């Protein structure tokens, strides 16, 4: 539905603030570095990545607020932007007909709730503009969907955070755009509200069925909301896939780390069957669940989430089973969990367990890891 091909965008960053008057050297910063993506009809697609990785810039390029250096953006068959591949084209931002929710919501403070939502209809080119009556109907309909109809006459600044978010959504949806863009719409809210609005958003998106692109740096949010996720890093797409895919099969250490892994061990395949494999790590052998047989000559990295590590007292647990033996090096209490740093033959593995399980430093323990929770990341030379 939306296709992005080889998009690039660099910014000039003045490097020397003090040297005013002198010629200021400026560095080039690649905010988008050769990004290609395809987003399907009806999807909730997420750009996920750390701060500064180029999510917003990509989204703004789709909206037309930023002009990429090269590449192509198409919506269905319509070319929104094309540069450096034959004839250059660019549809101006106000003719793209997309909906967008800004991080700050960008609600116009001098207009009422009704007028904020009516604006996109009122500014349509005259020949497409609906009659006043129709505008009013459509605005009230979308306000009702967002449960804001009671506030129509109110000044837009007198709304709560959650209501403002729904107002911004209503305004983005009132023209029934083919694509909805959302830039961290939940990041301004407190944790509680964020959680409830996350579900609200998912419900709405499901009901309306609109294709959406969602930008966030919060992996929990991305996993909960998206049908597919593009994990971005330094202007590039590191991996695209369904949330479960990304969670269980990160393709690189970066993705694994970003999605919550923090224990990494180098590994080589020893025995590879259908469904499971045995790998050799410096700390010992480990059983891992796999989709397909491993390449015996390749090297891998295994990623283990702290919460998938079980900590057992060494004397009660059999030394067999999937895992390692070690000694607790440190422990910290986190309220709903306890973190243990366990020394396993020179590697410090982090394990996050229920607070009912707690071992003081120096205790000999056995770590148990479910093979299905271990992710296998191919390093150079390995194919998946």
């Amino acid at each position, binding site marked *: 539905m939306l296709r992005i091909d080889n998009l690039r965008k660099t910014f000039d960053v003045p490097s020397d603030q003090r040297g005013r008057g002198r010629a200021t050297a400026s560095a080039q910063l690649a905010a988008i570095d050769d990004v290609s993506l395809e987003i399907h009809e009806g999807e909730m697609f997420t750009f996920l990545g750390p701060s500064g990785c180029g999510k917003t810039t990509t989204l703004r390029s789709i*909206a037309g607020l930023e002009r990429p250096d090269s590449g192509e953006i198409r919506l269905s068959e319509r070319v929104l932007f094309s540069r450096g591949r034959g004839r250059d084209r660019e549809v101006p*931002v106000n*003719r793209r007909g997309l909906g967008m929710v800004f991080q700050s919501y960008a609600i116009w403070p001098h207009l009422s709730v009704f007028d904020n939502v009516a*604006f*996109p209809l009122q500014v349509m080119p005259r020949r497409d503009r609906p009659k006043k009556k129709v505008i009013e109907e459509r605005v009230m309909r979308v306000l009702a969907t967002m449960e804001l109809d009671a506030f129509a006459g109110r000044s837009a600044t007198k709304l709560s955070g959650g209501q403002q978010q729904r107002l911004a959504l209503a305004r983005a949806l009132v023209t029934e755009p083919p694509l909805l863009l959302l830039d961290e719409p939940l990041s301004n809210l407190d944790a509680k509200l964020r959680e409830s609005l996350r579900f609200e958003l998912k419900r709405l998106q499901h009901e309306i069925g609109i294709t959406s692109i969602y930008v966030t740096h919060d992996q929990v949010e991305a996993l909960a909301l998206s049908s597919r996720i593009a994990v971005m890093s330094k202007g590039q797409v590191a991996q695209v896939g369904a949330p479960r895919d990304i969670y269980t099969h990160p393709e690189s250490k970066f993705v694994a780390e970003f999605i919550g892994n923090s224990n990494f061990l180098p590994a080589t395949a020893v025995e590879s069957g259908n469904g499971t494999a045995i790998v050799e790590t410096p700390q010992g052998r480990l059983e891992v669940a796999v989709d397909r047989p491993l390449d015996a000559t390749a090297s891998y990295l295994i990623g283990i989430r702290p919460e998938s590590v079980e900590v057992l007292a060494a004397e009660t647990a059999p030394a067999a089973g999937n895992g390692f033996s070690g000694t607790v090096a440190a422990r910290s209490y986190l309220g709903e969990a306890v973190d243990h740093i366990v020394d396993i033959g020179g590697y410090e593995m982090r394990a996050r367990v229920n607070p009912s399980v707690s071992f003081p430093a120096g205790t000999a323990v056995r770590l148990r890891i479910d093979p299905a929770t271990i992710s296998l990341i191919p390093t150079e030379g390995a194919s998946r």
Partner: protein
Amino acid sequence: MLQQRYTEERSAGQLVRRVLSPKNVIVFLAILIIGYLVLTPAIYLFIATFFSGGAFTLDAFRRAYGTSGLDSMVLSSIVFTVGATVLALALGTALAYITVRTNVPFRSLIVATSLVPLIVPGLLYTIAWVMVASPNVGIANQIGNALTGGPWFDIFSMPGMIWVEGTHNVPLVYLFMFVAFRAMDPSLEESALVNGATRATMLRRITIPLMRPALAAAALVVGVKTLGSFEVPTLLGVPGGIFVFVSRIYYVMSDFPYDTAAAGALSIGLVVLAILGTWALNRMQGDGKQYATVTGKGFRPAALDLGRWKWPVAIGVLVYFLVTTALPLFVMAYNSLLPHFQAISIRAMSEFTLQNYVDLFENPIFARSVGNSLLLAVGTATAIMVLTAVAAWVVVRGRRRSRKLVDQLTFIPMVFPGLVIGLAVSFVYLRNPLPIAVYGTLLILLIAYMTNFLPYGMRYAMSSLQQISAELEESSAVAGASWWQTWTRIVLPLMFPGLMAGWIYLLIVAVRELGSSILLYSPGNEVIAVLIFQMYEEGELVDISALGVVLVVFLSLIVALVHKFGSRVGIRL
């Protein structure tokens, strides 16, 4: 169907339409007008000074600077400017610190009274001081003569000039520093104390460096204003034989036959001096711009306990206001009731009359100049705010190159004092480049005022636009609005309170503008300030006093009305 609506073929017609889009046309027109207003006077001044009969010559400089007393004129200009600026900075900063950061009694009263002198035009303030402290007729000196057998204070001297100019500019400094002290996070000071610094060290190492950008900004505005001040040097300096650049230029231009080239040469010297000062202060301010921490918001600074100094400080501040504000205003009101200027006495009070006011309202020139001044003030304020709304948008949101161009263009008039602008504008319209008559009409005053006040309007427009997040405009564009729709339905309404505040400020400064009017008015086109100046030269002190009272009351009414009703629509002066 969508496909058809958005044909992206680039035909010639589309190209023309894109180039002639409302945005391009409006921005281009605004830059063109600003460029014209700013550059023509500069260029004509340059030509009139350096070219005579089509040939390059430095003769004008020889005539202007060759006369004796050159070094004393340059020295006087510098002493006057530095002295009055330092005085204003010291008093304004101290008052701001006292009102923002200490527990001085009557705090809100002090805040209000420290702004009152803003309303009194410089010309009236100067004349009021002549009536207070002229060695012969000044009321204070008459008391001095009676008590100690000699005058206490001679206002026609360099200290007199510095005192009057400096105290008149205190409110300007006060405003800058008040905002800066308010915005400073007190925890920056507290952490210095916690780390073992004494209060003195804290002031020296933390407070003053943090205040440096604001101090430099205030020094720039006040310094440039003082260097170009017309009223004080002409009324107070010339009688005592003290000349500065501005009074020398005026002197040259009032001595027939006018040596316009020599006046131009003096003007260029003055502008160079202003540029040097601006450059020096900009360097000082430049380093300080990195302190992002100073621009926080919403702190309630902990008040410094003055302890046993509480009442002495309060009394000192009150005495200061009595002397600098109440005394001149009182003297003016008092004299406006007398049939002729005379010493304070019981007998004089028995002669109190309203005849001066009656005369004033029956004077046809008064009515005419009030009309002219109001017309000019409204015209100038409106035209400038319309222009600077667009210009500020270009500077804040525009592309890098046009942003720089407009930013620099609108700054240029800062270094051109009002009198120099008047002179340069007269050069332009003696050889009128426009197809309409300008010389000898109100239009020439309008043009001079617009050039003169452009930077002020720009400051208001910029700060109001900077408060509007760019996302508010972007979301309008994404919603499908054209540039024009975004501009009229989103940007302008949001800027409106800031533009209105600028409009009112310009209205007030334009009503009292003398420097750029004095060389450009013609009979029938007098403005209020020129009328007062002429009356002063005729020695009609009691009539001026009546006029002054009327003017101050009128300006106070405007400010009070804005204060009362303006806050409803968010206008703050």
